[in-house]
């Protein structure tokens, strides 16, 4: 097992190789690869060593996430989901649950996380999925949509209403009454295994309900989303790095009318802005990870800011990279074509641009009397 996820970068790069283009076209990741990375603790690298994980700092896990994001955003999305599940288990699980689930999540079992519902995206009040006690057991009813990684998962971590509060439950994907339907042809992160899932009186043991439930819904959401936002923000730094590198390399060697593209000032402008975007998104993510590692209350807003800035930067930069590559990058599977679609989706997930703006505006307003 590597000491830090950063030490595993080269090995992960070798495992991934040139496959992301084919994954994008097929809309599928090799599950053996996911289990292999999972068994090395790399899908949720912040799990402490005492629970079988790598015990990475947020900063190191962030850099590793950016590296994976530079290779393939579908694979990075799987890391994001697994990491959210692990963070929620660490925060909300009891002693036994932390021991059991964190061991599983660092030994090859895969977890997806379900929040959104047809009537409840960012608006929590519309949530309809409910957990009800039935003797010693619990029954889960409802549905979740666009669950990233559900197509590969062994567990779905589902946030549901419970009594007058909420609960997070670990639902095994072989449970009776659970139906998982793959979403055909998503715009981006095409191989990330997005599914709609339906719970028709799924029976669960009490041990599946993290911390016994009865927890604050906003608290459950914000905890899970904060990890997710950090992970997506760093993943977008990876998209920026891939775009910068690919555009610069192309501009340097592609000749038109006796001149390489890089000799054209308008192309240089694209490269300059790509560099600015990559450096500034990195700085914003580093700042948020410092707050995260210091367990500072600042981390909640910093994670929103980092996600919003990095996703917007990546979406714009991916557009520039496609512009520089032109026909050379205008095919599905190509790194900049994937970046273009994947980055757009990062402006939608874990709080759309607009929801992030509302949160950030509230923060700005709350700091004045």
């Amino acid at each position, binding site marked *: 097992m590597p000491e830090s996820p950063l030490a595993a970068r080269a090995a992960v790069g070798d495992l991934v190789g040139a496959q992301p283009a084919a994954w994008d076209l097929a809309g599928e990741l090799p599950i053996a690869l996911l289990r292999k990375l999972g068994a090395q603790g790399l899908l949720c690298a912040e799990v402490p060593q*005492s629970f079988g994980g790598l015990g990475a700092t947020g900063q190191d896990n962030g850099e590793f996430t950016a590296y994976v994001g530079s290779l393939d955003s579908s694979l990075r999305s799987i890391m994001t989901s697994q990491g959210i599940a692990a963070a929620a288990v*660490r*925060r*909300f*699980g*009891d*002693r036994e*649950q*932390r021991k059991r689930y964190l061991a599983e999540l660092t030994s090859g079992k895969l977890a997806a996380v379900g929040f959104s519902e047809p009537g409840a995206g960012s608006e*929590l009040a519309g949530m309809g999925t409910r957990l009800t006690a039935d003797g010693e057991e619990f029954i889960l009813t409802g549905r979740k949509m666009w669950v990233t990684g559900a197509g590969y998962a062994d567990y779905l971590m589902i946030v549901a209403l419970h009594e*007058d*509060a909420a609960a997070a439950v670990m639902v095994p994907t072989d449970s009776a009454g659970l139906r998982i339907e793959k979403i055909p042809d998503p715009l981006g992160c095409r191989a990330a295994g997005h599914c709609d899932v339906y719970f028709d009186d799924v029976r669960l043991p009490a041990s599946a309900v*993290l*911390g*016994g439930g*009865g*927890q*604050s*819904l*906003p*608290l459950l*959401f*914000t*905890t899970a989303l*904060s990890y997710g936002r950090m992970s997506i923000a760093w993943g977008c730094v990876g998209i920026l790095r891939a775009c910068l590198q690919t555009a610069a390399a192309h501009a340097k060697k592609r000749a038109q009318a006796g001149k390489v593209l890089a000799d054209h000032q308008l192309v240089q402008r694209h490269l300059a802005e790509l560099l600015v975007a990559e450096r500034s998104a990195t700085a914003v993510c580093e700042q948020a990870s410092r707050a995260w590692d210091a*367990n*500072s*209350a600042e*981390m*909640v*807003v910093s994670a*929103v800011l980092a996600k919003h800035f990095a996703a917007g930067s990546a979406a714009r930069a991916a557009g520039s990279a496609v512009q520089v590559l032109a026909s050379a990058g205008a095919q599905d599977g190509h790194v900049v074509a994937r970046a273009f679609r994947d980055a757009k989706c990062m402006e939608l997930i874990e709080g759309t641009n607009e929801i992030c703006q509302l*949160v950030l505006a*509230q*923060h700005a307003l*709350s700091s004045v*009397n």
Partner: protein
Amino acid sequence: MTVDQDTGTQALDAPAIEQALLAFLAEQIKTEVGPEEDLFGSGLVSSMFAMQLVVHLEETFDIAIIGPELKLENFRTVSAMTALVLRLREQQGSESDA
């Protein structure tokens, strides 16, 4: 709700914790709240702030709030949070949790 106020030899007692929490809330949400006021029911606390509150309690009072301790009831009012902080300081101070 029973309040388990076993302050022991801790320098921080219930009134000090309550005072610190009321001041923190007043500063953060720009509203004066009472120790028994329902923060969640009254809509004073946003989803973002709930998480900040947990992290602030952990950071300020050197405790870990995990698992079943995250029950909404423990955060509903300043006096409930005060009781939680006292109880966790008592428990966790006596544990050598690895």
